[in-house]
């Protein structure tokens, strides 16, 4: 087939990139080779627009065993235990086919974790939809939630936490990010680096079909009106087969048969084989006629680019084939030696002994393009927002408005569709600030949470970037965990647009500053660009997934109030920042101003002090204050426990809305047994913590003295109704 300009364009390659290919090959590529270049050089696989910025992120730390660059990050949680985790986007496929898109997103991230030798122990997700009134939203929400549940429930890994948000910026481009967390022993971590020449390259798992051919390039292109018409063959997930693959892989990993292992994710056989060879600085030769195929007459091009799910590539030690084959046969999975490692440093593709394609590995990997794209700084918006001009609103009305809004409604409609309990180590299920998963057979646990704040990031990206790291950090603190490391999924618009690239660069700058200060390194992540339609880009939506350690599970903390007549203390200073707040958005439809500032020094001090109080067993419950401010945090603590509160009006004369709805950062509410109050206050003072005594807990009523008094059951009903009526 002659390579025309049209074909090059259809492969998402720019003219200069094609010239570069010709130069690297010293000839024209054939069609198969072109397909392979296009798969490896697209944004999704090559990170060509993001790399120069990503390398600024802090990736080292005393707990880090493996930072970015492998299938997933690995941290040391003491004893001989290691935690493996990563987050990944599946935005584009989920918009086209929500159930399968979300399901295969979960399947993909699980493979990233168990390829490294870890048994997955928890799933999380961050999902963003368009406006609830948009005609597509309901169907997408339904499909995505049942897809996430469908996969996780079937394979038997609990889905324990996440976030769900609605905003019109996602009307035509939803976000579906899935995170998986696994556990392994420190001496049982598997990597993707090939070693040795003449070693068997083995294909295991499902057969290859014509699924999602060019999925990776699709994820790297903007949608236009025709995308829905084009409807590329979507991948269908098969969680049952994945369960078998998981068990078979873990069984084979018990000894040292495996030299290297890599799942077939985006760009399937191509990227898995190239990555293993590239990391080992070796060549690889594949005999494509051996690839197990689902359909007749599949071409080498289709085999190399298929994104069929539930497949892996393994490089085996000499003489281990029989042993390995037996295991995969036991689990009824395909097991075929399809090639070998070579010293040629080339990817050689043969079909019935004819060479169909031959490309130097470095041309596909290290020599893939890298762009330092132009970007512009975000300008500080000048118009100062004048709070005095707003119509008066009653505290109670504003509270109810927020609690009944889609973004703040109780998420049990979603979380009840996920099996959160399977594996019987879920100490804290969805509904609190972070989920807690016990390490099997031990008295320690990890806490996990995912967070994003697209509004903040849009209005001022560098502050937004800092804020999400801090919010995520706080969520772990609030359940008594020491935050250890994060993974991140960077969902942005078109990087060829200077403003978007600016949002990207500045968000990363913010993330970096916060991570460095909090000693909270990034160990894995994923970038998803081109989220937008017809030049409309989504708000910058970096998502942070954090993991923390709970050394001893004597008393897990959550945000449910524990008893009557205990004291409530607000940690951190309240200034009443309403810019970009949920109060303005839900009550006045105003989206204005700067996001709240982050003071990293206070952030760290507040968090560490709370952690110490928890360790001393002085805290009954804790909740961080985020979107919606103090009053929302208090009402959540009340609703989850059905215990009321009686809050005094602030002593200083101030605007009540600012006080109760302000979104100042670095704050928490903690519940303290009265008998410990003196000790706690003393501790707070010696640690230089700013705090306010808020009031006490009481039966039945959510009360702000002299302002409002509501039955908690009514509050709860209002908070629950939105999803059930949608």
């Amino acid at each position, binding site marked *: 087939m002659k390579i025309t300009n049209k074909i090059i364009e259809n492969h998402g390659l720019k003219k200069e990139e094609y010239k570069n290919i010709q130069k690297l090959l010293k000839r024209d590529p054939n069609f198969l080779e072109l397909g392979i270049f296009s798969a490896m050089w697209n944004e999704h696989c090559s990170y060509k627009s993001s790399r120069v910025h990503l390398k600024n992120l802090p990736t080292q730390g005393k707990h880090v065993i493996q930072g970015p660059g492998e299938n997933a990050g690995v941290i040391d949680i003491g004893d001989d235990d290691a935690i493996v985790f990563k987050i990944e986007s599946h935005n584009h496929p989920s918009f*086209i*086919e929500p*159930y399968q898109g979300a399901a295969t997103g979960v399947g993909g991230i699980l493979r990233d974790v168990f390829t490294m030798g870890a048994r997955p122990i928890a799933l999380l997700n961050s999902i963003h939809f368009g406006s609830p009134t948009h005609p597509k939203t309901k169907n997408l929400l339904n499909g995505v939630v049942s897809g996430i549940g469908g996969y996780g429930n079937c394979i038997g890994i609990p889905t324990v936490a996440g976030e769900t948000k609605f905003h019109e910026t996602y009307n035509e481009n939803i976000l579906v990010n899935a995170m998986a967390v696994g556990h392994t022993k420190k001496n049982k971590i598997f990597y993707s680096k090939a070693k040795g020449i003449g070693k068997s390259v083995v294909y295991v798992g499902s057969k290859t079909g014509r699924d999602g051919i060019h999925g990776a390039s699709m994820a790297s292109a903007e949608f236009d009106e025709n995308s829905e018409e084009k409807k590329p063959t*979507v991948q*269908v997930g098969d969680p049952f087969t994945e369960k078998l693959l998981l068990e078979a892989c873990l069984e084979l990993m018990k000894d040292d048969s495996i030299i290297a292992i890599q799942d077939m994710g985006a760009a399937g056989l191509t990227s898995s084989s190239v990555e293993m060879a590239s990391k080992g600085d070796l060549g690889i030769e594949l005999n494509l006629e051996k690839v197990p195929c689902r359909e007749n007459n599949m071409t080498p091009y289709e085999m190399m680019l298929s994104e069929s799910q539930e497949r892996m590539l393994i490089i085996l030690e000499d003489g281990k084939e029989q042993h390995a084959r037996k295991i995969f046969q036991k689990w*009824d999975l395909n097991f075929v030696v399809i090639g070998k490692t070579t010293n040629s440093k080339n990817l050689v593709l043969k079909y019935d002994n004819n060479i169909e394609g031959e490309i130097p590995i470095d041309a596909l990997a290290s020599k893939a393009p890298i762009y330092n794209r132009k970007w512009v700084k975000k300008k500080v918006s000048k118009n100062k927002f004048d709070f005095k001009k707003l119509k008066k609103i009653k505290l109670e009305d504003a509270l109810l408005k927020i609690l009944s809004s889609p973004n703040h409604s109780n998420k049990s409609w979603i979380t009840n569709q996920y099996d959160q309990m399977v594996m019987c180590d879920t100490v804290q299920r969805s509904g609190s600030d972070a989920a807690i998963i016990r390490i099997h057979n031990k008295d320690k646990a990890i806490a996990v949470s995912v967070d994003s704040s697209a509004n903040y990031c849009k209005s001022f990206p560098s502050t937004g970037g800092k804020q999400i790291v801090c919010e995520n950090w706080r969520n772990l603190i609030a359940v008594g965990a020491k935050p250890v490391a994060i993974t991140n999924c960077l969902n942005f618009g078109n990087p060829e647009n200077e403003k978007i690239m600016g949002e990207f660069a500045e968000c990363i700058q913010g993330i970096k500053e916060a991570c460095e200060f909090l000693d909270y390194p990034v160990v894995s992540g994923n970038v998803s660009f081109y989220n937008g339609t017809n030049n409309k880009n989504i708000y910058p939506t970096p998502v942070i997934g954090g993991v923390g350690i709970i050394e001893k599970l004597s008393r897990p903390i959550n945000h449910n109030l524990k008893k009557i007549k205990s004291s409530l203390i607000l940690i951190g200073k309240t200034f009443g920042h309403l810019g970009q707040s949920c109060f303005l958005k839900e009550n006045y439809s105003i989206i204005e101003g700067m996001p709240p500032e982050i003071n990293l020094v206070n952030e760290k001090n507040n968090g560490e002090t709370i952690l110490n109080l928890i360790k001393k067993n002085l805290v009954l419950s804790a909740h961080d204050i985020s979107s919606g401010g103090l009053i929302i945090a208090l009402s959540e603590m009340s609703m989850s426990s059905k215990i009321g509160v009686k809050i005094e009006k602030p002593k200083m004369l101030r605007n009540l809305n600012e006080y109760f709805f302000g979104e100042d950062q670095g704050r928490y509410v903690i519940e303290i047994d009265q008998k410990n109050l003196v000790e706690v206050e003393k501790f707070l003072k010696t640690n230089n913590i700013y705090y306010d005594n808020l009031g006490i807990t009481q039966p039945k009523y959510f009360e702000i003295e002299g302002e409002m008094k509501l039955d908690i059951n009514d509050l709860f009903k209002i908070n629950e109704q939105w999803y059930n009526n949608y």
Partner: protein
Amino acid sequence: MERQFQLNLKKSKLKFSVTVTLKKDVLDPQGKVVLNTLTNLGMTSLQNIRQGKFFEIDIETKDQLEGEKKVKEVCEKLLVNLIIEDYKINKL
């Protein structure tokens, strides 16, 4: 009275069936497992099984064309995922 009413209703009702099948090339995990099981149960002469959905729909109309049009709408609105499935309508 009641019977008469029911008879009237019956008269103005048409029955359709819809079969929904996965598009060619789309993975059918169910069919795969069912085929394996049957082969293991000794049914070796089976070559392939694909699983789909089946609906019986009663529509209030006397006009077959109109009925078909409505069933088509039902299919495209809800029953069928056009991205991975095909469907066929039959008058019963």
